[in-house]
């Protein structure tokens, strides 16, 4: 099932960007002048730090400089990995549309592995109740109704696959953070 899959090329960082990541990957200091702190450690001016930050933001090296809440402490105890079997030709257009829904945190196109796995669009949703995530799934379904596929991959047995599903997580088995190493 794991054949013929290509990965993107590894992007390159400048020495300054590497240093910036090493200094901030565990977080930004919560002080009056957080960027000054980085400037001091990198031995460059704060103006240079600000322009380096903007440059990394525009290239997508930094996605956002933001607060990341603990889901559970805010009451978001339910998450659903919604998965969809949609027309490949329309996947890009509809993938971006699903990604724009306010309750979707991640949305990706992934490969199918027929007949075991017929879903190509993945969208994560988070909610405070099981009803909330079920409602979100319904809203995504409404958006995708024109492009959802129902396939009969084994006509002899009349097996019709579902066009969508929602996998909720019931247990964290392992969770680690990734760090760039010196």
């Amino acid at each position, binding site marked *: 099932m794991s054949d013929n899959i290509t990965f993107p090329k590894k992007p390159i960082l400048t020495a300054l960007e590497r240093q910036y*990541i090493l200094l901030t990957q565990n977080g930004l200091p919560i002080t009056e002048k957080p960027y000054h702190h980085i400037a001091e450690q990198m031995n460059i001016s704060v103006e240079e730090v*600000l322009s380096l930050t903007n440059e990394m933001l525009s290239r997508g090296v930094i996605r956002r400089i933001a607060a990341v809440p603990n889901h559970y402490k805010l009451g978001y105890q339910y998450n659903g990995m919604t998965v969809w079997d949609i027309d490949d030709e329309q996947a890009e257009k509809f993938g971006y549309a699903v990604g724009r829904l306010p309750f979707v945190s991640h949305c990706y196109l*992934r490969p199918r592995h027929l007949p075991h796995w017929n879903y190509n669009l*993945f969208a994560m949703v988070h909610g405070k109740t099981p009803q909330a995530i079920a409602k979100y799934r319904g809203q995504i379904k409404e958006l995708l109704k024109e492009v959802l596929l129902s396939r009969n991959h084994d006509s002899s047995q009349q097996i019709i696959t579902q066009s969508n599903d929602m996998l909720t997580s019931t247990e964290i088995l392992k969770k*680690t*953070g990734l*760090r760039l190493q010196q």
Partner: protein
Amino acid sequence: MGKLMDSNRKIQVTTQFVSATPSNTPAKTQKNHSNKMIKSTRICHEIAELSILDKALINRLQHGLPVCERPFTQIADELNSTEKQVIQHLQELKNSRVLSRFGPMFDAVYLGGAFTLAALSVPEEDFDKVCQQVNSFEQIAHNYRRTHSFNMWFVIATEEIEEISSVISAIEEKTGLKVLNTPKLKEFYVGVYLPV
């Protein structure tokens, strides 16, 4: 805490939280156990008590901190507060771990690694054993039990792209199960926003 992969590696995997599978779970022998029961025994959560300013800060700062010399003065102006108050509340939210992180969020690809999301369909009676086998690979970054016949979903993170397929083969050999490999082909959106 820090679990170094080996001294030459560029990425390091830091274990933040590992919930070991309880050995006394009654679910093992029950075939049609409900999700509700699993949830109540497995994921523990304590909802934080938050002030109006805390909530406003959490909502505002999930969107991003301004890139300027005194970013918290701008945040304070927007929220009708003071820089001092904003910093104090933010530090408390971080210390009490209501915020698990505050700072730049890097695209993991730039940290020099390769990633994929993969799954296994594990027979319920073998779940704990297979969980240990899979988690024993240092390249497993996250692993979740999910409600599906593919009931174990994990992220494999390696330094080199080529290593992904060797880890998959090694998992298949160790568990005797076929791995479903679903790397991202296209990213449409990434950005968690949880309003309070």
